[in-house]
């Protein structure tokens, strides 16, 4: 800047001159401020934007308490998002909640993600969601821990899912006849320990079976094998059995909300995969009984139609073929058929047949089974109702071959299932028969019978105790003594001596003959004897006379006193025999026999009564019959006691006679019979005591 002296008289005029500079050089530092502010604002904006997360839509049936801008979305109780908008679906049927979800969790929001509204809830198992009373509801989400393809639209659940997708465990399916005892979230017990929970029971497509999904938590899910059996552990069960009254109560929660339990009754099962299907049994006993039965995944369904009532038949009732269980009743439904004039109600029973049990291959198709059944039906195979057992009212279905059955065909194309022809059951009259039998049993005079047996035994004892019987052996002893005296007598003693002497003489004679060396003579004698023989032969006419002489000689020999001895001995034994043969003695076993015969007759009569059924009247009769039997049998020990006493006494008596005599043997055998009779009576009594019903069934 230089001063230009244009007017020297004037004071120096201030040069006010804006220097011409490039605009950027003219820039002030202060421009950094807006730049900085812009940068900061942009940074804040960018952060907000990048933190904003993604917008997802969750569709609920209703969204009670959900408010835009206030309701949070949580995962494991940590807020991960916020509801931005609550609107409706296009048809106004559903509520669409738009929520902004944190970016970090977005990759996990795949198809496994589930959302529900958390509200305060009070259940039998506790109180949940209490915090929402103050803070308002929130939306809780859950998903598995594997990132997937993120979705932006989800169907919200009405309630918290029972099984969290991130939980580890195994999900299996139970097949049950009814789902009434199981609620969603019911506990699953293993040996009384809660190891899982159930989902809400659902019907299968046919509507005949209830399917319950069960989730067993890890690591308890390794307890599940193919040998595992599930049963309903709901509430309590009362059973009356041989071991008395039995009351089983599960946990209180199970009492209220139901529950299932499982156990593995035998080892060696294979580990199961996700989704394995188990049968749900009614209780532990049934489950145990079915421990070895395979739940077949392959069953074929056929149907049959019964005319008339099928009360007592239920889903799950057994289906028998030739005495072997091949399946079970799947469902029962009634339908009306017939023409306009006469309508009839028929019961259609659908049957599940396990081809494996029928002897076919495990994966046989319906056609295979039908191919098997068709010729059988042609030759008379029919479905028939029968009693499951004699006392209970439950029914089973059996496939039986009826001879001369009315011709019928297996209707393969019948709807909804192939139809097996049926025949009417003949069990209707069983009830009446049984009642009659029971009445007869009830009217039996068993007490009288026992009384009679006791008095018989008493008279036996009396007889055995009688003086006569005691004297009889004495007479025998006397006889034997006399006989011994006789034998000991001189004549008899001398007899052998005489014999010996005679023999001696004979021996001497022979020796003499040998000494005299007359063999040659003998030869000549033999020769002459030959001649003599010839003579004799010629003179055979005289021979009989000779024989007569010999016989006379023998007669004489027989006339010896020995003869008398033997006779008297025989007489002795005869009289002993006669003693035993006396009416009194003989009557003893007879009357016993008769008594037993009577009893046996009675029993066989009872047995012939045959079949039984379950009417209350019949049972009442049976009970009173049993009671009278019991009263009667109370007397039986006395009887047995007496028989034993008698036995001992008789045995003592017999020992006194010495052994080996015929009398002894016969008496012994007689007494053995008596004892056997007594034993069989005792055995009968015991058998009756143990199982009075054997009287009914003839077993």
């Amino acid at each position: 800047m230089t001063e230009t002296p244009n007017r020297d008289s004037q004071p120096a005029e201030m040069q006010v001159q804006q220097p011409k500079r490039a605009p950027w050089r003219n820039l002030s530092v202060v421009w950094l401020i807006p730049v900085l502010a812009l940068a900061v604002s942009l940074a804040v904006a960018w952060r907000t934007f990048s933190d904003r997360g993604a917008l997802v839509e969750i569709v609920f049936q209703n969204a009670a308490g959900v408010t835009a801008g206030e309701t949070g979305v949580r995962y494991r109780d940590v807020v991960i998002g916020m509801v931005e908008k609550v609107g409706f679906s296009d048809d106004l049927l559903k509520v669409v909640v738009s929520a902004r979800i944190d970016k970090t969790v977005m990759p996990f929001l795949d198809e496994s993600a589930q959302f529900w509204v958390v509200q305060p809830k009070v259940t039998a198992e506790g109180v949940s969601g209490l915090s929402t009373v103050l803070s308002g509801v929130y939306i809780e989400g859950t998903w598995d821990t594997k990132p997937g393809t993120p979705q932006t639209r989800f169907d919200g659940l009405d309630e918290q899912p029972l099984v969290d997708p991130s939980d580890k465990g195994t999900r299996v399916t139970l097949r049950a006849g009814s789902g009434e005892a199981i609620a969603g979230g019911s506990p699953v017990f293993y040996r009384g320990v809660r190891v899982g929970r159930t989902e809400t029971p659902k019907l299968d497509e046919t509507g005949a079976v209830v399917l319950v999904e069960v989730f067993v938590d890890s690591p308890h899910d390794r307890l599940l094998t193919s040998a595992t059996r599930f049963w309903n552990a709901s509430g309590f069960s009362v059973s009356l059995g041989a071991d008395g009254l039995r009351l089983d109560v599960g946990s209180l929660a199970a009492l209220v909300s139901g529950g299932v339990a499982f156990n593995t009754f035998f080892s060696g099962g294979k580990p199961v995969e996700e989704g394995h299907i188990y049968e749900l049994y009614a209780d532990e006993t049934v489950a145990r009984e079915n421990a070895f039965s395979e739940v077949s995944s392959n069953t074929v369904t056929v149907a049959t139609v019964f005319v008339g009532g099928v009360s007592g038949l239920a889903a799950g009732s057994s289906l028998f073929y030739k005495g072997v269980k091949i399946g079970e009743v799947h469902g029962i439904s009634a339908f009306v058929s017939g023409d306009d004039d006469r309508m009839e109600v028929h019961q259609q029973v659908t049957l599940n047949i396990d081809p494996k049990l029928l002897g076919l291959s495990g994966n046989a198709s319906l056609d295979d089974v039908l191919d098997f059944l068709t010729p059988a039906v042609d030759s008379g195979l029919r479905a028939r109702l029968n009693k499951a057992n004699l006392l209970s009212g439950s029914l089973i279905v059996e496939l039986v071959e009826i001879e001369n059955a009315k011709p019928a065909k297996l209707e393969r194309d019948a709807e909804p299932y192939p139809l097996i022809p049926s025949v009417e059951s003949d069990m209707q009259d069983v009830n009446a028969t049984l009642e009659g039998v029971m009445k007869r049993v009830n009217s039996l005079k068993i007490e009288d019978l026992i009384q009679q047996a006791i008095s018989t035994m008493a008279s036996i004892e009396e007889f055995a105790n009688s003086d006569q019987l005691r004297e009889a052996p004495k007479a025998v002893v006397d006889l034997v003594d006399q006989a011994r005296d006789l034998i000991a007598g001189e004549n008899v003693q001398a007899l052998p001596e005489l014999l010996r002497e005679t023999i001696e003489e004979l021996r001497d004679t022979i020796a003499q003959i040998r000494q005299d060396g007359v063999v040659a003579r003998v030869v000549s004698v033999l020769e002459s004897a030959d001649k003599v023989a010839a003579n004799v032969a010629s003179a055979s006419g005289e021979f009989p006379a000779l024989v007569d002489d010999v016989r006379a000689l023998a007669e004489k020999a027989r006339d010896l006193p020995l003869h008398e001895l033997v006779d008297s001995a025989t007489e002795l034994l005869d009289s002993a025999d006669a003693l035993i043969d006396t009416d009194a003695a003989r009557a003893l076993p007879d009357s016993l026999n008769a008594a037993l015969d009577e009893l046996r007759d009675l029993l066989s009569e009872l047995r012939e009564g045959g079949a039984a059924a379950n009417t209350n009247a019949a049972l009442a009769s049976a009970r009173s019959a049993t009671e009278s039997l019991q009263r009667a049998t109370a007397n039986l020990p006395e009887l047995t006691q007496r028989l034993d006493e008698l036995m001992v006494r008789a045995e003592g008596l017999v020992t006194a006679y010495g052994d080996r005599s015929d009398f002894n043997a016969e008496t012994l055998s007689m007494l053995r019979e008596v004892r056997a009779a007594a034993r069989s009576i005792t055995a009968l009594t015991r058998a009756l005591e143990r199982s009075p019903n054997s009287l009914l069934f003839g077993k």
Partner: protein
Amino acid sequence: MMSATQTAAPDRDDGGARVQTARAAGLVACTGCGRVHRPDQTRCLRCNARLSSRDATSLQRVWAWWLAGLIAYIPANLYPMLRTTTMGHETASTIVGGVVELIDYHSYGVALIVFGASVVIPIAKFIAIAYLAYSVQFRRGKKGVLARQHLYEVVEFIGRWSMIDVFVVAILSSLVQFNFVASIHPGIAAVSFASSVAFTMLSAQSFDSRMIWDANEAVET
């Protein structure tokens, strides 16, 4: 703060046509205390402030601060000013949202005050400063020099009152801290709003009001 006019106004005719300025008299007026000096003086003899006949960068600074204030004002309105947590329930309200809420509660007076302090005044300030700077920069508005001077004074005076909102937030968030029952936290908007107000005040202060008269002078010559 300074509010006095730097120029002597001997004749206050409404057109403001003739005003003797320091520059016209060949002198330099101190912007701090108003004393006039000879041009060769670089520092005020009274207050030791730096002397310059006209601040060449004044307009630049005005525009820069103005822009910064405007930028800061955008998030101040978009983001929540207050985050109120009551019973575990958090509500965040922006300035306008708060006003709407107050109207909903029929607190029209308070709503008016808040609206005036937080919306009307800042926006009016932006407009006023922009108008002043614009008129000086492009030498428009030969008329109403005095009115513009008044406007400038008002802007400078009233600008600080915009801070009332920030005060409220500051006081509330330090007083209302009852944990779960109720607590108030400042939001991002509180910071940006405070900076916006500060920036506009700086902008107003950067404005060399003498230039208003220069325009008049220029028209004159």
